[in-house]
């Protein structure tokens, strides 16, 4: 690390927002365990753990991608439609044949990458904010899906369906793939130049430009990866449902749910600050809440109310922590305080 000569005087930071996320997650788990026990069930049973983890994987994929895009200072509202489209494209190509799996996956992810590329280029080159650019892209895809697919289509071969059905211990393979992607993205953000530059561009584009960065590259990359990850979510849904569906993404509400998970995970909506770990925590909080409310047979309306309250409360907490200006003369006033103490 640093040479011995520097005396680190890092100020004792309060709990980081990622820290808060995991504290909240722990509390949610405790509360969930108690509530589940009251309903006469075991929260920690392998079956239930597996169910919760299964619940994390789809939103997990999408939220990881959304984190990248939000860190870059953009937003992706087209993800649910990309998810639907890839489930259909892959399902139709596979058509129940094991030999077509690779082709189906490659084409589906290729299509999502192209959609992400289009999003990224519109955002960077045409200077359209991501909110609008991807809202437009989402509408285009929604229109395409509604016109060309009257209902479910395609079919996943048995081998492909296994991805959605296999567990290693209580852990579903799909969750492991999602976590694998998370590790890769974390590595990308922390240990590659483009990852550092993504934070820089999202934090302050002008600073990034003045430091000689290509400000478009990280943003385009974030959009491409986000779409590809949404495509992976689509593939996973195909594996689970064994058919492609034109409405599966929109039904999941993955656009807003992923943004909510990202923000719940402590990433700043304006970009430049946040991390994947927090997002995973956010996704897990949602999964645990859904699971507990499912076990307790809470009505769906109340479910959404609870989710809504949690999102707003979390963001309010973060806002409080960053509110107010930094003290302008922190040290002098410390001295002042000491003087007062002495008096």
């Amino acid at each position: 690390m640093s040479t011995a000569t520097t005396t680190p005087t890092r100020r004792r930071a309060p709990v980081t927002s990622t820290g808060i996320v995991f504290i909240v997650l722990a509390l949610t788990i405790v509360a969930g365990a108690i509530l589940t026990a009251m309903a006469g069930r075991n929260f920690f049973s392998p079956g239930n753990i597996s169910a919760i983890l299964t619940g994390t994987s789809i939103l997990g994929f999408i939220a990881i991608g959304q984190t990248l895009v939000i860190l870059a200072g953009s937003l992706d509202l087209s993800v649910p439609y990309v998810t639907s489209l890839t489930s259909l494209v892959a399902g139709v190509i596979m058509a129940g044949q094991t030999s077509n799996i690779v082709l189906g996956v490659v084409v589906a992810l290729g299509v999502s990458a192209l959609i992400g590329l289009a999003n990224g280029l519109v955002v960077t080159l045409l200077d359209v904010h991501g909110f609008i650019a991807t809202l437009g892209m989402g509408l285009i895809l929604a229109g395409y899906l509604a016109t060309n697919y009257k209902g479910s289509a395609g079919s996943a071969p048995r081998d492909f369906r296994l991805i959605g059905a296999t567990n290693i211990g209580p852990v579903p393979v799909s969750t492991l793939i999602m976590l694998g992607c998370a590790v890769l993205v974390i590595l990308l953000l922390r240990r590659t130049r483009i990852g550092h530059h993504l934070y820089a561009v999202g934090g302050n584009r002008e600073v990034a430009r003045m430091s000689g960065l290509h400000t478009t590259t990280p943003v385009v990359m974030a959009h491409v990866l986000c779409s590809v990850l949404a495509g992976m979510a689509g593939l996973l849904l195909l594996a689970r449902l064994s058919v492609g569906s034109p409405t599966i993404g929109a039904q999941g509400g993955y656009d807003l749910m992923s943004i909510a998970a990202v923000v719940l995970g402590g990433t700043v909506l304006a970009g430049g600050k946040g991390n994947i770990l927090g997002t995973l925590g956010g996704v897990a909080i949602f999964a645990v809440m859904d699971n507990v409310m499912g076990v307790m047979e809470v009505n769906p309306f109340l479910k959404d109310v609870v989710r809504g309250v949690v999102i707003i409360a979390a963001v309010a907490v973060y806002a409080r922590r960053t509110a107010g200006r930094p003290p302008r003369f922190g040290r002098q006033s410390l001295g002042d305080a000491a003087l007062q103490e002495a008096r």
Partner: protein
Amino acid sequence: MPYDTDVAHPGQPSEGDASGPPAGPVRDASAPLLRATGLTKRFFGNAVLQDVDLELRAGAVHGLVGENGAGKSTLMKILAGVYQPDGGTIEIAGERRAFGHPVQAQQAGLATVFQEFNLLPDRSVAENIYLGREPRRGALVDTGQMQRDTAELLEGLGVSGLSPQTVVRTLSVAEQQIVEIAKAVSYDARIIQMDEPTAALAEHEVALLYGMVRRLQERGVAVLYVSHRLPELFELCETITVLKDGRHVATRPTTELDEATLVRMMVGRPMSAFFPDPVPGTEPGPEVLTLTGAGNGYVDGIDLRLRAGEIVGLAGLQGSGRTELVEGIFGAQPFTRGSVHLEGRPVRIGSPRQAIRRGLALVTEDRKAKGLALNQSILDNALGVVRAVFPGRTSTARGSMPGVLSSMAVAARGMDQEVQFLSGGNQQKVVLARWLSTHPRVMLMDEPTRGIDVGAKHSIYELMRQLAADGVAILMVSSELPEVIGMSDRILVMREGRLAGELPAGSSEEQILALATGADAGTPPGGDAA
């Protein structure tokens, strides 16, 4: 311009050019590291910089002064590659250079520390310094190497106690400044220009900065040092260049200059003529605002009395709590201790809205962030406060607005023009119009003339005199001591969140600074005002 008679033919080769006549042999054996000749920049046909020459030498600190609007920033931005000049040439170490982008200037060894920091608050010191040039091992960023390099770099600059991993947001302004300078140095810059590096620093931090500048000098770096604080220039610089109205006025060795001469060259006339006298018949009236032991999170033990028709200057260093005091009075950072009386009646002001209803006005320090909605029209901005707080008076205020604006000589196409297209001076006049239309009894002004040109300054001073004559009590925060001295009936000085003392009109800069820094041994530090 009527007032450059005092100065030897600006723009022409004058006596001041003696240090570097374009053709003549250089006095010094070493050739200049940077030679800029005939730099010219126009915006919309207006020349903001005209035919300016500048030479920087290795291992020398060169001061650059001039009033706001004199062209200093433009000159720096041209050298930094932010602007492209419309005329003139830049040579670095004898080689012609043209910068299309700031990065090209950096690559040529010319780095700039701007006043507004170019740092990412949520990234670490190391990540900020090596942004865009992160050391790699294989495909990955070598974070360990990056931190070692940063530690080494900081050590080389004599900085201790700043960890490379610290997130920039948690640093003090001075430490952020250090990071900026370290970043500039890390480009192996041979030339570093600094824009008002001490503007945001407290006294003990300034010494740290001086140390860094001297170290750069020892390393043979040429430093261009822009500052309003004249004593700094005399302490640090070998040579000083004065700009005025976009033209080169003089370049002289510091030893041949004194502050009075420098000020005369900058302003083009003696200081005394610059500030209007009070309107005849202006008399301090009854006490309007009284604070007793007031304090919030930033200031404490404030006893203050403000009388109608009075202009009281509030001086102090950056961070001494001046802004926080006026924001306390205005309810933006409400006082939590002490009492406030308005015209003898006790009041509690918990929000700006309450303050406005009681006849207070605050011209904020940062007009772009807090004073104006830049993409709205002049009229909407000027009526903003009245509409929000006194909706019943809106139509009256609207009716009188053309008169108010033209009395202040706001230069605009019309009242529907967006304020972002106005000059800083005209924007500030719109801010004033906004408050005048509420007919305040107490006018709090935080740096009312920051960043505006001389002409606009003068008309704001005249307006202040007129307001005082009309019985408004004015409390003016200012970092420009000549302004404080030139305008104030009394001068209050703050230090470390407290009032350090009061001085009568006509006090000297030295007296104010002594109080502001605590250098005056007669005054015990802090709290005796409580």
